Structures are given as C-alpha cells and as structure tokens.
C-alpha cells in the first residue's frame, strides 16, 4: 500500500510517497526514484534509525502542532502538513493580518502602544523579556490598534495573542 504525504519544509512543498507493497519499504520524494528503506524505532517522540539504500541515517522526530519537528545532524526542521492552515504560534509561523502573537514565551515588560493608536509597519508594540534579553515585538503591517491583551508584568506563552489591529486600508494582504 502506498501512502502519499504532502509536507511543507523550509518554505517548500515536498511530496513523499511511502510504499510497502512487494514486501519492501520505499520512499520516493517529489516523484523521484524510490529509495529502499529499513526502519528501526522505539516510537514517537524518539529517534528513528533509517537505512536509506543501506546508508544509515538518524532523525529525532517529535510532533509539533499538526506537523513534526525533526532534528538531523544538528539541523532542525519543521515539517508541517502542506494542506493544513497556519499553526498558531508554530515556530517560524506568520501571524494573520490583524493579529500579533508572541514569537517566544516570556514576561511582557512594556506595552508601547494604546488602543486607537495608528502605527506604521515595524512599530514596536510590546517588549517581551526572556532569558535576561529584551525582545521588541513589531507590528508587521501598518494599522490601527484594536485590542491589547497583555499588560506589563504578565507572562505570555509562545503563540499567545498579544495585540489585535486593523490593517490600514489599501494594504495588499
């Protein structure tokens, strides 16, 4: 039986077809030549050992939102489903226009705008401190601040909705 997976990794859509018919396991990427696999693993999350055409590879795999985080030889990949929508707060995820979420967990130490403020793109909205470093969270688009959900001193988790704004009219979204 062949299973077709559509993934989004490093900004590109990739297709992996895993096929176990004919008594052997293969994977073909983007309709390329099927590669013969041999797999050993103790489960997910965990390390999968894969012999790809007899060559050993190891990958640590854990679920991350609707996709997976995979670490291979020091590089970390976020492998997301290509069909699903944006994962709220997922690493590297972009916010919907009109929303600004926390890219990291930390304590909100400063709110630099008020409801009703008209802000340009790139305007710092709040400052989140984590690990003794202050990180300015910027407004990705110009617009009018509609709601602020945190005040100074509150802890925000990664992906938490910080600020809502109405994007300026005429912006191509």
């Amino acid at each position, binding site marked *: 039986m062949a299973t077709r997976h559509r993934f989004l990794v490093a900004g590109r859509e990739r297709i992996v077809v895993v096929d176990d018919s004919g008594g052997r396991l293969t994977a073909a990427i983007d309709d390329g030549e099927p590669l013969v696999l041999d797999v050993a693993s103790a489960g997910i999350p965990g390390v999968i050992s894969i012999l790809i055409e007899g060559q050993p590879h190891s990958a640590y795999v854990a679920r991350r939102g609707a996709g997976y985080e995979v670490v291979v030889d020091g590089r970390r990949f976020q*492998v997301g489903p290509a069909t699903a929508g944006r994962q709220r707060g997922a690493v590297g995820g972009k916010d919907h226009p009109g929303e600004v979420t926390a890219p990291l967990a930390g304590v909100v130490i400063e709110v630099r705008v008020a409801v009703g403020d008209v802000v340009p793109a790139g305007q710092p909205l709040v400052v989140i401190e984590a690990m003794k470093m202050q990180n300015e969270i910027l407004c990705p688009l110009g617009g009018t601040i509609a709601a602020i959900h945190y005040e100074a001193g509150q802890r925000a988790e990664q992906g938490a909705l910080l600020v809502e704004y109405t994007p300026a009219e005429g912006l191509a979204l």
Partner: protein
Amino acid sequence: MFTRILIANRGEIALRVQRTCRELGIETVAVYSEPDRNALHVRAADAAVCIGPGPATESYLLIDKIIEVALATGAQAIHPGYGFLSENARFADACVAAGIVFIGPSGSAMRALGDKVSARKLMETAGVPVVPGANDIDANDIETARREATRIGFPLLVKAAAGGGGRGIRVVDRLEDLEGAMRASGAEAATSFGDATIFLERYVTNARHVEVQMMADAFGEVRAYGERECSVQRRHQKLVEEAPSVAVTPEIRKAMCDAAIAAAKSCGYRNAGTVEFLLASTGEFYFLEVNARLQVEHPVTELVYGVDLVKQQLQVAAGEPLPPYPYPGPMEPRGWAIECRINGEDPYQNFMPSLGLVQHMQPPLGPGTRFDTMLFDGLDVPIFYDSLLGKLIVWAETRDLALRRMRRALRDLVIAGIATNIPFHMALFENDDFKAGRIHTGWLESSFTMPEPPEDDPREITALIAAALAAGMTAAAPAANGRPASGGSNAWARQNRSRSMSFRGGGGGWQRGTAS
C-alpha cells in the same frame, strides 16, 4: 576540608561544583527558585531549599536568605559559582560576618578591583601593563586633555570614570574631535552618574581578548595557569573559548602570567580569578580587568593543565596551601582545548532566545569530549535566567584535531524541542578565518555572517522520510477503542510490531509543566 557547603547558583555551574564535591566527599546544599524545582542541581544535592520565586532578585540574589539557609543546613562555606552574587563584595562580607567561608576573594579585594579607575591605578603601581592613557581629567579641562591625548596617540577612547555598560564612551580619531567628545562624554557621565570625571585610553584596534587563569592561596602563593583565547564574541558575550591561544608565544605567556600574578598580589587576592588582557597584533598586551570568580570557560584551562579548578578553590578556601608546583616558570599547556557555549538562541532568527520544553537531548560522547549541561529530557527551560544551556568542551593533541573533534561532537549533540545555536557553531567551525585563528574581538560581528541553510541539504531528505514514517507510525498506533487506526496494516508497521516496538500515538510525548 569542609564537610558540607552551600552552592548559591543554578544550572550547569551548580552541577559542576557538585561533581567535584561528591568526589571529595563534601555534601552540597542546593538553593533553588520555584521554577527550578525540577532542575538537575536540586536532584544532585544532599539537601535542597527553595528560596523564592523565579526572578533572581527574589531568589538567587537574596543575600540574607541564602546565608540563613547556609546556617540552618550546617554549611561551612558558600560557593557562589559565576554571575548572581559571585562578585558581590557585600555578599562576601556578609558570609564572613556570619561565620561562613566565602569560596572566592575577599570583599575588599573585590572592591579594589571592581572600580575601573582604582583598578587601573593599582595595576600601574604593580607594574602590570595598562592601556596607555590618562586618569582623572575634568571634562572641562580641555588643555590637559589635549596634552595627554597627544602623548597617548590616536585613535583613543574618552571614558567616563564612573561609567559602565558602554555609557559615556566615545572613540576619537583626531585631535580636533577631542573637545566635542569630552563634552558629550562628560555631560552623559554627569547626568547618569553625577560625576563628570573622564579618562583617556588608547583604542587598541583589532585586539584579541586573552585572559589568564590564576589561583591564590592564603600563604601568598599565586599560580597562573596560562591563557584562554576568548575573542569570538557577540555583543560582548563570549561564544567560543580556547586554551591555549594561537597568538600567544611562550615569551608572551610568561610575561602575561607574571603580570597576572603581580595583579593578584597587588590586592592580596585569594582563590580563583581571571586577569583579562587586550592582546594587540604587535604582541603587546594590556590589563583590562580582573574577574573575581570562577569563569564559565574554566574547563578549557582544566583540560590543558590537568587541574580541577573547583577542587583548588575548595582547598585554598579551606586554608590549605596550593598543591606542590614542580615548574620554575609558567606551566606549558598540553594539547588544545576548545569550548562552545550552547545557548538557547536561534541563529536563524537573529539569535532570539528560544526556550520551553526540551523534548530530547543526546549528549556527545567519546574521546576528549565533555558536556557540562543543565539539560535533560523533559526540562522546561525557565525564562528568568540567561540562555546558557550547556558547554561543549573538547580536548585533542593539536588545534587542528580539536577543531575536527568539535565538529564531530557538535554533530553528535542532539537537542530537540527548543532552538539552539548549534548551527552557528557548525558554521563557525567551517569558517576559514576562524580555522586559521585570524580573529579579534570585533571579528565575529564585523566579518562573520551566519550562512543560510543550504538549498539542497541532504539532511532535508532524511527529515522528510522520517516525518513520513512518523506519520505512518502514529497512524499505526492502536486507537482509543482498541482497534488499529487506518493505515495500521502496512508492512513496515507490522515489521516494527514484530520487533516488539511500542508506538505512542495521539499527542504522545512529554507533558509540559512540573508540579510547582
């Protein structure tokens, strides 16, 4: 020797001190903040006391509270680690007043070294080379400043005597710019520090940061354990340290060690300390400052000199003399050691802090490889402290072999769940300037760019296949009602089941959060 000490710190350094204590048969008392309840230093201690909530000002910086815990738990001494209270003279004094040994220098030595201008004068008197400069100039006394500036030469720095954190510092390239810089610097100093006194210092361009480890006992014996090269810095934060330095000849080493010993003797220093120098490309070096504590990067010295610096700290603090010294001059290093600071920072997102749940950590092992770390599977990295997760340290016979070993160890180290700067280190260790040791303190920020991940990275193929297999495995897991979910019949899943593999389906994995 002590039988029980308190460690007023957390993270990898608390573990580092505990390990030596365990070997010496000394019990340790851990203090911890609420979010550190699950930390390894709490687990590894003989006694553990919670001292407050997450922010350091409400826990790890509470002098009275920590001394109270030391007295209540019967600790005879306190090891401060680095950071937090390690260079706080008031804390050192308070320990002594409570009848507890502070494992570090005296409060008075810290005060003498802590003030930039008084330290500079102390070193000049002791014959330690300082950057050519002039002290105690009134910001309005342009006449004197011109005369001194001409003597010192350009470029030079105008610094506020009471400054700190880079405030009140101006670079002056030409004599005609001096007056403006003095006014600006003096005004800033007067506003920020209420003191318009400035000093002038030659600006040593393209200098290296090279430091000497010293250790002093109560009998006036001061020993220097050679140098560490710490020029790879980002925003004044060291990222890679080596011992020895490619730029230090045996002659420079001897002169530097002698200067470090003189610096320690000038203020009656005891215990471990580091004398930092600027090393110019000409081979001349100048005193920067003394770090009155054990440093983050101490392991590279331990590896090339075969010493346990924490053990020596404990010995001299307990009033024992330094162990016998078989050499007439400074000891020569054996082999080469390099340390990479593994930080929870994402090099692909401008080193933004990354924290949260560590889902998996696989330490690098094998010859010449040491990993001092607070990490373990399931640790929720707290947000309150710095981003240092661990220190990867290698030793090999030569620098070239140490570079190769570090590349291997970086590849073996797996940290999943949070982003780390491992990709930065991997790129750095492929950089030609770094490999040749052609670096200075400004090099990383001026000349190194973090390369984007390669477009056709073979690791991406592995990642894609692994993700597809994981999708199959989790789909193959038994559903809640006991029947296999769809897709559970495929051959490789059967093959795995026949090997008694267990699958954890659904949202399996670590659950966030500890009880506290």
